[in-house]
């Protein structure tokens, strides 16, 4: 068993779900591909998950559930998502319950917890409207105050699980005057409203997550009691934005699961297929592509886990951290899937030849993650508006309160440290106190320099890590200078250059996260992690965003990384900095062998 407790649920779920390449296991690749072909909602899978009581892990302990920390949560969502993003997303719409855990009354919390636990209930988030997209304030859905409640009118579309769900979180206009206080949020329980006053819209046919219940909901003079309002009238936008800080960061887990499968199934092919007397993996170019994909997964892992733990340790900085991972992790891992498709060759385009065609499904399903729950540009926009303040804080805080900063970073990144309980009330609409992750660069450089006396470390590797982190620091200075000098404006007409700065900020944040992860976990994540080649290679990879390869230190040998990749594959372990145990195969898998023999004859 994994020593880190936050991975126990993920491991247990893995074990019980069984090997996805065994057609008979729950959520097997075969089953999810069949459902996808039929565009059918995965009822059976969802029921299995309810029976497993996974829904309890979506309810905070203080509300009667088992949820304790976000790093535990992202680990088991990865497990779901590596098998099937359609079911993972369908089941995880339940996480919008966080709106109630954050802002609900005790009664509302009780109602929702019991709905989830005892009635296998699901919820959906109804924010979008056809005419308004990302512009939430332009809402046409109205909730007009009447004695004892509201009259709801209007249509929400496109909404995932709008039809197959019992609770709809609806954002509606309660103040005709408009403005930031004109929206309110409602937890509409369908069982308690008149069915004559609402209708579900027809299924929307999508390119990916085809079995999803994508539809919409229309309210017509629908009375909803006051008890269905979440928080005070007018706090809808504030709640929506804070709720997004949570769900956006967690979207990274969907991408991580998808990237794992894309890499695993491609690696399986590359290790098995013989060409020119060798395996595909023996050829340097494909090997490099797969090794680089693994590095990207590790980088994203460090960024995601850091933010997941940050919810508990630094909630007032999450407005920045969650935008960083929603942009960086989802787009990076989308690129990973694209990149490895080249190694899978023609099979990435065939529906039956390799692992039931799961690769193509991953490619299609995964493409939505960077778009929904706040698109890439919306996240970068949320981040860039805060850059000026972040730069100011960085200057102001430089060199101050180093001990408390160190303690906060350790609490966030040391995976063995217990986390304080998460309190949603501490989330802030804009970052408070700067960004610890980038503020701590100086401290990280000191810690790295202290390691020079550690004889267990390869000095060349350490030297590179130091040199590369200094470059990260230089790039941050350049960025800060650009931000200070820029004619920064408010509003939605931001220059594309400012979006570029925001993207670069994310890269620097991710690079620093990798370094802290290493510094604080060198002694408990195994030899591969401790030796640090992966870190030097990752930092170099990230710095290619800023500098040409020839301006960077020579690339270290990546042999240790590619060997680790194969080792994890052979032992059925997650591609992760915490390579927890995946389900073991129950029987020798033979499907691909047959095709390989045919290929050799051809």
């Amino acid at each position, binding site marked *: 068993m994994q020593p880190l407790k936050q991975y126990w649920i993920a491991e247990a779920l893995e074990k019980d779900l069984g090997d996805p390449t065994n057609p008979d296991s729950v959520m097997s690749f075969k089953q999810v591909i069949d459902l996808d072909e039929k565009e059918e909602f995965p009822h059976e899978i969802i029921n299995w998950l309810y029976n497993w009581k996974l829904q309890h892990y979506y309810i905070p302990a203080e509300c009667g559930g088992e949820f304790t920390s976000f790093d535990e949560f992202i680990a088991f969502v990865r497990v779901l998502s590596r098998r099937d993003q359609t079911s993972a997303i369908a089941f995880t719409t339940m996480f919008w319950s966080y709106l109630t855990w954050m802002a609900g009354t005790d009664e509302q919390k009780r109602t929702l917890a019991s709905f989830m636990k005892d009635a296998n209930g699901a919820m959906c988030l109804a924010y979008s409207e056809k005419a308004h997209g990302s512009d939430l*304030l332009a809402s046409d859905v109205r909730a007009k105050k009447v004695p004892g409640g509201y009259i709801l009118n209007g249509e929400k579309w496109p909404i995932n699980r709008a039809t197959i769900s019992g609770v709809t979180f609806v954002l509606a206009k309660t103040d005709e005057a408009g403005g930031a206080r004109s929206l309110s949020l409602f937890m509409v329980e369908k069982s308690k409203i008149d069915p004559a006053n609402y209708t579900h819209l027809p299924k929307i046919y999508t390119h990916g997550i085809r079995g999803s219940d994508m539809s919409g909901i229309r309210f017509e003079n629908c009375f909803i009691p006051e008890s269905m309002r979440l928080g005070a009238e007018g706090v809808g936008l504030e709640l929506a934005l804070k709720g997004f800080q949570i769900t956006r960061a967690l979207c990274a887990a969907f991408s991580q699961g998808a990237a794992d499968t894309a890499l695993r199934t491609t690696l399986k092919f590359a290790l098995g297929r013989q060409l020119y007397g060798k395996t595909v993996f023996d050829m340097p170019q494909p090997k490099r592509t797969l090794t680089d994909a693994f590095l990207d997964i590790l980088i994203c892992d460090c960024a995601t886990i850091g933010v997941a733990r940050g919810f508990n*340790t630094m909630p*007032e900085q999450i407005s920045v951290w969650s935008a960083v991972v929603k942009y960086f992790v989802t787009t990076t891992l989308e690129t990973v899937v694209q990149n490895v498709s080249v190694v899978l060759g023609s099979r990435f385009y065939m529906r039956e030849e390799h692992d039931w065609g799961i690769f193509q499904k991953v490619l299609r399903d995964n493409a939505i993650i960077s778009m929904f729950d706040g698109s890439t540009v919306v996240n970068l926009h949320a981040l860039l508006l805060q850059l000026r303040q972040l730069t100011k804080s960085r200057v102001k805080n430089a060199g101050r309160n180093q001990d*408390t900063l160190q303690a906060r970073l350790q609490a966030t990144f040391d995976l063995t440290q217990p986390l304080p*309980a998460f309190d949603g009330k501490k989330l802030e*609409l*804009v970052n408070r106190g700067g960004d610890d992750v980038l503020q701590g660069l100086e401290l990280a450089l000191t810690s790295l320099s202290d390691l020079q006396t550690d004889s267990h470390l390869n000095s060349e590797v350490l030297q590179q890590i130091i040199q590369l982190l200094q470059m990260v620091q230089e790039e941050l200075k350049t960025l800060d200078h650009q931000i200070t000098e820029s004619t920064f*404006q*408010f509003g939605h007409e931001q220059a594309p250059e400012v979006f570029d700065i925001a993207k670069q900020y994310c890269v620097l944040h991710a690079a620093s996260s990798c370094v802290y992860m290493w510094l604080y976990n060198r002694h408990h994540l195994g030899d591969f992690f401790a030796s640090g080649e992966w870190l030097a290679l990752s930092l170099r990879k990230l710095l290619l965003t800023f500098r040409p390869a020839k301006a960077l230190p020579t690339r270290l040998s990546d042999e240790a990384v590619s060997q680790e990749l194969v080792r994890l594959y052979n032992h059925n372990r997650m591609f992760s900095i915490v390579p927890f145990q995946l389900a073991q195969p129950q029987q020798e898998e033979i499907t691909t062998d047959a095709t390989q023999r045919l290929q050799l004859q051809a």
Partner: protein
Amino acid sequence: MQLKDSNSKPSSSNAVDTIQGWLVNQIAKQLGINAQTIKITEPLTRYGLDSIDSVTIVGELEDWLDAELPPTLLWDYPTIEKASQYLVNEVGVTPAETATQATEVTTKPQEAPKEKAWGGLWNKISGS
């Protein structure tokens, strides 16, 4: 939010003016419009300042006043006039640049509470 300067009543109208002036200039600058065209009684959304902008502008205001403010200040007090009055009369902030308060600048009371606020924040998080 504690009152920071409750015995400065005589100069409070001056403080309101100063904050109003600062907000007018800041918004004019950030939005690239003429300060003369900004009316302090109009909702800021009229000038194209949207909800997220008005949260980030509070950050600038915090720096200038050296005080911790609710980020949704301009959501709840959506005109320059209302926001300034709230800041002076309810929060009790006194801008350092208020002309008649020049002598008070050196003993400005905002520094200490602010330090406390950030220190206190970490204590809350770590559960102590």
